[in-house]
């Protein structure tokens, strides 16, 4: 039997130190996912991290300390939110600093899964790329425009690092499940069990009935199934809570595609083994010879300036759509006159909160029903200076744009902050959503061992 511990759902979001300490006793390893594409393309594009260094350091210090105390490996995947080289280096630097502080010594495995545009172009030209659902069109040019391209690794990179003696592994972009499937697979646990347990574990305590705060999770894996039991005595799992979690953030809840095959949960059976633990059996894995890694990339689109404003005047609200149409056109004229920029040089939108700001084209109501609205004027131009210049023209023009009901100078917008326009920095978009077919699982990562 393998006892697997997930420290928390995302490194840097925290867990109770005493929960992890209790969970780690008798465990075979501690894993933690550190990344996600959910917060958008900015992190992959820019190299920035979602969680602060302080928050990541707090979690990593406790996790590695428990790993060393119990003499079990620690596996961290998708370092630094997006798992590209800057994210990986930043996380490894935190580990080095913690080691100096605590007097730790151990072999550190570092898995770099960023790949060059040239590699991807070569794959494109030799028919080794396949688009996933909703994938954008790609070309040599669009691939070259990416700031970073990462290949989402499977469990093999962790297995490789552990076999070479690593006690702690920090990996760049890797699948959520790879972190938790690696050691069970090394110990002969069938892939169906290893990957299904990993899918539940990767979100930490999210599979409990009511997760009041982020915390650790434990799975006991055997050949015929696995048992999920929250180590925090305040939390409980039920067959329904665990089955429901298999649904979370996946388009198809019954078939989860991994690099070396597909986890099939159609026949999974969830049985309560106590009033807070659940055994899962019946999941299977369809192995494939066609080993694929998912590629993610983010490309720079331009630079953003935003204006936030409230509108409360009932006469203005009654004509808000006409007002915005008119004002936009007046502003576009001014931008052409005073800045020499045409509408080909920038993109902008006016989001109306209180009408359709949240759902956009999906909004079935699509009209103002309340007594106020919030406006977001979102400008993306080729340089930050241009975006800022457009923002300054936009807010000042909209502020004083006349409406027919009033004569004399009006002030239409309530700006909650000064300056009314805020530079929001570089803007990226996800530009690749393809899988790359590999000859060997190790083709898209580089493993380095460092003696800490």
């Amino acid at each position: 039997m393998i006892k697997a511990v997930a420290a928390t759902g995302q490194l840097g979001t925290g867990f109770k130190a005493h929960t992890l300490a209790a969970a780690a006793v008798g465990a075979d390893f501690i894993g933690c996912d550190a990344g996600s594409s959910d917060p958008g393309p900015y992190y992959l594009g820019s190299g920035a991290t979602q969680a602060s260094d302080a928050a990541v350091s707090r979690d990593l210090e406790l996790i590695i300390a428990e790993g060393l105390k119990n003499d079990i490996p620690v596996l961290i995947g998708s370092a630094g939110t997006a798992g590209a080289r800057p994210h990986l280096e930043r996380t490894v630097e935190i580990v080095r600093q913690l080691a100096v502080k605590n007097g730790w010594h151990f072999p550190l495995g570092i898995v770099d899964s960023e790949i060059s545009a040239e590699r991807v172009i070569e794959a494109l030209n030799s028919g080794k790329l396949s688009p996933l659902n909703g994938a954008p069109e790609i070309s040599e040019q669009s691939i070259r425009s990416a700031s970073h391209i990462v290949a989402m690794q499977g469990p093999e990179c962790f297995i490789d690092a552990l076999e070479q003696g690593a006690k702690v592994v920090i990996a760049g972009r890797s699948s959520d499940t790879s972190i938790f499937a690696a050691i069970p697979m090394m110990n002969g646990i069938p892939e169906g069990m290893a990957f299904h347990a990993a899918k539940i574990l990767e979100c930490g305590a999210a599979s409990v009935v009511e997760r009041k705060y982020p915390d650790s999770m434990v799975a006991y894996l055997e050949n015929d199934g696995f048992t999920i039991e929250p180590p925090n005595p305040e939390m409980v799992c039920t067959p329904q809570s665990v089955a429901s979690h298999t649904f979370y953030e996946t388009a198809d809840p019954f078939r989860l595609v991994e690099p070396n095959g597909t986890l099939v949960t159609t026949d999974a059976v969830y049985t309560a083994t106590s009033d807070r633990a659940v055994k899962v059996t019946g999941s299977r894995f369809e192995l494939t010879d066609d080993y694929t890694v998912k590629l993610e990339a983010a490309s720079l689109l331009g630079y953003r300036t935003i204006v936030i404003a409230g509108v409360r005047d009932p006469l203005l609200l009654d004509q808000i759509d006409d007002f915005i149409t008119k004002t936009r056109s007046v502003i576009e004229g001014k931008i052409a006159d005073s800045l020499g920029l045409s509408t080909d040089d920038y993109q902008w939108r006016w989001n109306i909160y209180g009408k359709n700001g949240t759902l956009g084209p999906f909004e079935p109501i699509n009209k103002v029903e309340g007594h106020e609205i919030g406006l977001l004027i979102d400008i993306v131009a080729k340089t930050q200076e241009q975006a800022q210049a457009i923002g300054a023209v936009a807010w000042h023009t909209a502020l004083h744009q006349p409406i027919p009901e009033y004569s004399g100078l009006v002030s239409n917008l309530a700006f909650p902050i000064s300056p009314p326009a805020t530079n929001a920095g570089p803007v990226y978009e996800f530009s690749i959503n393809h899988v790359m077919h590999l000859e060997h699982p190790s083709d898209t990562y580089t493993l380095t061992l460092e003696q800490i």
Partner: protein
Amino acid sequence: MTQLHELARLIRSKNAGPFELTIDVMFENREAYERVRNSGMLSIDKMAAIYHVDPSLVTSFEADVALAIKISIPRPIASGSLNDTDIFGGQFHSPIVRLEIP
């Protein structure tokens, strides 16, 4: 008539990667789950109409063991791209919360 939220314990949406959205409707008991499932109100055609997408792009799953119905659709705009309004896709379930279920 009863509204969907009165029968479900959870109605949520979320990205399934940056290019897809997935909507989960989860139930406390089998009776409510079967009532909604059998009503056809969350059928592929109905959901395609609500979300203005081609029915061929909509996939739907019923999980008896989880008492849950899942509907997945491609995102009209990838997460975080220009004109996206919801990076996490967390509010896209809203139009079905008050859906009338016979």
